């Protein structure tokens, strides 16, 4: 909402405040002022001129040499290129030395050999948006009324010595979508009165009801319809003040009839519509739901197809307007119009909202109806229109109003106790202060039996419950006055859940291992949604995605994370280690929420250790990735239940990929990105991990109990085995652990060899076995006996000791 302060000052007195001070007060008490706009924009030396003569420039077809009276003794010669400039016009002249918006400074100049002492201006050159300039002057200079006085200040005449406040209205404050609404707000803030506009006219003897019949078919959607009939209208340009109030309010002037309806729209917040009575043609208005597929052409010359939930104004035969949204082309007011029907009605918000959404048509009218106009202003606005049409368009107002009225116009009563108000605010505002504030708002208020009985004027449709009264009191009393306390401590202790605490541990482990945490998008492309997914379920897709790239919810964190690594590598950051914790979305059915599962993913590429001057350089490999995973399991106390199995996963290197199992169930994967994938993403060797975090963090863990620190020496035996190359060392380790008695406390691979010294299909793997007993020193015989069991088991399994 754009509020001209010049206009506003007709209704409320704020003359002791500078515009910025007023804006600050309005913002602090409830309506945010987004901008304070000085319409003069620092312009100077812009005056009224009278074009005394015009002749063609001898050297240039499109230029005219004008002799202009600017209120001085001698005429000024000004060269003007506007097509509509003519002798006899009163025009806007920027004199030499004038400053115009956009940093333009006017100087004396010579144009093709002819002197030019200033510039004849268009409204655009005075900083008015092109879309607001009346169509007649949109392509040329602006022509002032004939009675304008040469040499006087044109800015004053044009209403540009004014400030406009741009209000950012929240959805509840539609009452401030009118000058009167803003006036009530300012009056409440300043504690002053509102001066309401008056409508006076002398009605003719002819009765409106004799020339116009009215029928309303649905009084739920259209509970009030009022029509005034005005004859003998002379359609013309509006007076200057009216045009400039409209432009200040963001509406383009058209002609006096349309401008008056728009003026009242801004003044009362009540949308009006003017029909050409003769073009209606039937002397009849019928409001009704549209028929399915019914067509009409709206004012913007677009043919619309309508549905039964759209509500129409018709002449009893065909549609003349879409109720509350836009009028029709057929009965539009034109220069030839002499009799108009002014519609002032109440259309239910939800209906207008739905229709305007259907048609993709938002108008100043629909914006107000959607949020609910003031029931008590509908008839006032109709009278105001009649009065202005009589005054400004020479109209003859027929007697009476053609009316269907079933609208409830009683104020809403809210009963609230002062204790409730103070309790909600944590304050001690006196009853007197509360009553004073409600009086400033011009709410009806009475105190009885310790309660406040508040009658809320219908213009404030947003106030319906006690809490609304709390807010009105608080905002006008001042939020700065509210003290600062903390909620009384309850029984709740607060803290992280075990899951949340463990998730932080996961972050610590990852970061301790040198990885940076990444955050990527949950939405991805349909193609990437299931890539690398540990579990593929139906994907969850957006109904109306903004792009294919973000159309589907992910089932793996890896695609985005790999993209992030590529982004870095493409910028010469070659060693990248990222992790992410985030949800994947496993859609089960279309009607239910997908199952959201929290995952952990890692992507590693480039060097792992880099200590260049000492010559240590180690690239990331499978075992680096696995080492991080093992460190995590160890930190979470899960090592015993974890195993790894070679796996084949789409997009990963078939020889370098494993599933991670927890208690026999696949909960993750580790692998090298398939060389083809690496190439696609411009990456060198890259390793990835993805795990079901929820499975890891909710797995049962043995309680931490101290075990005696060994007081007796341990005995170590090494075994080197010749194995098939394809035999997993993990399997052999499992055999050793199973065969070793309880004396075998640790098994560790300390060497793996494949090469010249063993057959081509073999490898040598060396294990180190540690035996000890916490209670005593082991004898040689005991160790030999235990070790022999291991050797026997290995022999049975076909593992050959070298």
């Amino acid at each position: 909402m754009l509020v001209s302060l010049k206009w506003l000052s007709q209704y409320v007195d704020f003359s002791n405040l500078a515009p910025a001070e007023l804006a600050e007060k309005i913002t602090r008490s409830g309506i945010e002022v987004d901008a304070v706009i000085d319409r003069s924009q620092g312009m100077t030396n812009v005056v009224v001129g009278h074009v005394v003569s015009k002749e063609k420039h001898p050297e240039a077809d499109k230029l005219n040499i004008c002799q202009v009276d600017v209120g001085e003794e001698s005429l000024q010669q000004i060269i003007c290129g506007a097509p509509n400039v003519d002798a006899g016009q009163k025009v806007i002249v920027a004199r030499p030395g004038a400053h115009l918006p956009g940093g333009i400074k006017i100087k004396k100049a010579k144009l093709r050999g002819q002197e030019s002492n200033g510039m004849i201006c268009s409204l655009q050159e005075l900083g008015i948006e092109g879309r607001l300039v009346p169509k007649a002057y949109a392509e040329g200079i602006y022509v002032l009324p004939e009675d304008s006085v040469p040499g006087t200040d044109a800015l004053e005449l044009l209403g540009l010595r004014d400030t406009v406040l741009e209000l950012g209205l929240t959805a509840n404050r539609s009452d401030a979508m009118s000058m009167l609404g803003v006036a009530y707000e300012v009056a409440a803030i300043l504690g002053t009165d509102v001066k309401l506009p008056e409508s006076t006219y002398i009605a003719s003897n002819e009765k409106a009801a004799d020339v116009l019949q009215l029928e309303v078919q649905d009084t739920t959607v259209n509970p009030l319809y009022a029509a005034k009939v005005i004859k003998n209208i002379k359609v013309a340009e509006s007076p200057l003040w009216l045009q400039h109030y409209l432009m200040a309010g963001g509406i383009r002037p058209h002609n006096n009839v349309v401008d008056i309806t728009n003026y009242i729209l801004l003044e009362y917040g009540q949308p009006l519509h003017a029909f050409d009575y003769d073009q209606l043609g039937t002397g009849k208005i019928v409001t009704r739901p549209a028929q399915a597929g019914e067509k009409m052409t709206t004012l913007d010359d677009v043919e619309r197809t309508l549905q039964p939930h759209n509500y129409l104004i018709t002449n009893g035969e065909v549609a003349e307007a879409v109720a509350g949204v836009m009028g029709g082309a057929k009965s539009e007011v034109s220069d030839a119009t002499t009799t108009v029907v002014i519609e002032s009605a109440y259309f239910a918000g939800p209906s207008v909202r739905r229709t305007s959404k259907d048609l993709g048509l938002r108008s100043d009218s629909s914006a107000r109806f959607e949020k609910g106009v003031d029931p008590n202003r509908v008839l006032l606005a109709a009278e105001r229109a009649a009065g202005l049409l009589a005054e400004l368009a020479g109209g003859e107002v027929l007697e009476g109003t053609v009316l269907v009225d079933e609208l409830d116009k009683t104020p809403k009563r809210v009963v609230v106790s002062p204790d409730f108000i103070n309790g909600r605010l944590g304050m001690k505002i006196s009853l007197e202060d509360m009553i004073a504030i409600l009086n400033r708002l011009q709410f009806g208020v009475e105190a009885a039996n310790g309660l406040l009985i508040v009658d809320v004027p219908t213009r404030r449709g947003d106030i319906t419950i006690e809490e609304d009264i709390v807010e009105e009191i608080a905002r006008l009393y001042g939020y700065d006055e509210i003290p600062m306390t903390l909620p009384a401590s309850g029984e709740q202790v607060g803290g992280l859940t075990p899951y949340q605490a463990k998730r932080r541990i996961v972050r610590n482990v990852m970061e301790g291992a040198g990885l940076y945490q990444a955050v990527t998008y949950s939405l991805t492309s349909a193609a990437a949604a299931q890539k690398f997914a540990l579990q593929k379920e139906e994907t969850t897709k957006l109904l109306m995605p903004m792009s294919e790239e973000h159309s589907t919810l992910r089932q793996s964190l890896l695609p985005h994370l790999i993209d992030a690594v590529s982004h870095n590598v493409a910028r010469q950051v070659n060693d990248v280690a990222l992790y992410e914790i985030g949800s994947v979305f496993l859609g089960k059915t279309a009607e239910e929420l997908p199952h959201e599962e929290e995952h952990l993913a890692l992507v590693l590429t480039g060097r792992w250790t880099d200590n260049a001057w000492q010559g240590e350089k180690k690239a990331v490999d499978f075992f680096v990735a696995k080492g991080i995973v093992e460190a995590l399991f160890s930190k979470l106390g899960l090592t015993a239940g974890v195993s790894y199995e070679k796996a084949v996963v789409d997009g990963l290197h078939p020889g370098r990929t494993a599933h991670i199992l927890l208690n026999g169930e696949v909960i993750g994967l580790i692998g090298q990105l398939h060389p083809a994938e690496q190439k696609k993403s411009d990456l060198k060797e890259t390793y990835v991990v993805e795990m079901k975090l929820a499975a890891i963090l909710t797995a049962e863990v043995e309680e931490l109990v101290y075990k005696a620190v060994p007081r007796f020496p341990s005995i170590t035996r090494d075994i080197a085995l010749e194995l098939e190359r394809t035999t997993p060392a993990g399997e052999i380790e499992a055999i050793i652990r199973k065969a070793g008695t309880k004396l075998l406390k640790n098994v560790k691979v300390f060497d793996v060899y494949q090469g010249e010294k063993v057959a081509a299909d073999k490898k040598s793997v060396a294990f180190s076995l540690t035996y000890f007993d916490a209670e005593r020193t082991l004898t040689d015989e005991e160790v030999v006996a235990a070790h022999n069991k291991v050797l026997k088991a290995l022999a049975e399994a076909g593992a050959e000791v070298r």
Partner: protein
Amino acid sequence: MEQQLNQLKEEVLKKIEEAANLKALNEVRVAYLGKKGPITDLLKGMGKLSAEERPKMGALVNAVREHVTAELEAKAANLEDQAIQAQLEQESIDVTLPGAAIKAGNRHPLTRVIEEIEDLFISMGYEIAEGPEVEKDYYNFEALNLPKDHPARDMQDTFYISEEILLRTQTSPVQARTMEAKEGAAVRIICPGKVFRRDSDDATHSHQFMQIEGLVVGENICMSDLKGTLDVLTKKMFGADREIRLRPSFFPFTEPSVEVDVSCFKCGGTGCNVCKQTGWIEILGSGMVHPNVLEMAGYDSKKVSGFAFGIGVERIAMLKYGVDDIRHFYTNDVRFLSQFERAEG
């Protein structure tokens, strides 16, 4: 013989003097004091002497022997010292060369802000509540006093999955879910999480971002509690000198509703480009929980009340660290992420 002995002594001492290292010194020892050495020879030759001369010469030989042994030991100690000195010199390093780096990653700046806020509220007795990113229309809107035809639904453009399912546009549905689950008991929660809006990604908009919602419900919870709580929060996040102010606003799920400004941490309130010359920076929205929201979740709005607030995590991070483009948070450029390595108390 005595002369021979003296000559020998002179010769040995000279050799000791000349020995450049322990090995050479040992050769001298073996050569002169060994079983085949000249002193041993001299002792062997004592048989030829008379009985009177024998003890005298014996004493002389022993004296020479002791003297030589002492000289040898002194020289050995000296040489060892020299050897250690040489080794130390040789082992000396350039201490200005860089240390062997210990790899250290760090949290994403958004997580850092979230954890800082979580920890503050945990210390005030709050729990952390989480909820799904894909939500029912009911929890995202209807349970928050936003029925289907509510005009304020325009305020948020929503990604729908189906008529009834959507990507949550705020973390507030976690409030509704938590209240429902608490079945009338007091609530004190912080809800961090990802949210989604139909926005094109640019320097100040992101179709995905993070929010933290706070909710307290109980007897006698009032607006001054909200103000005091937010004052603690802003002082923690932006410094002890910060002040807050409340401005009336509108959210369908709170009544009264307020926007909260913090005094500018850059200029302290005199006006600068960060605060757009106003001295204040808008940081969050909040209010007293709307009675409809309480009633829908099964609370008696006459008996209990509550406050709620919602913070944009990116906004806080951008203000706190001076980040100028929201897309940095989702690009995951290591040159950006690694700037948040430093820990803060």
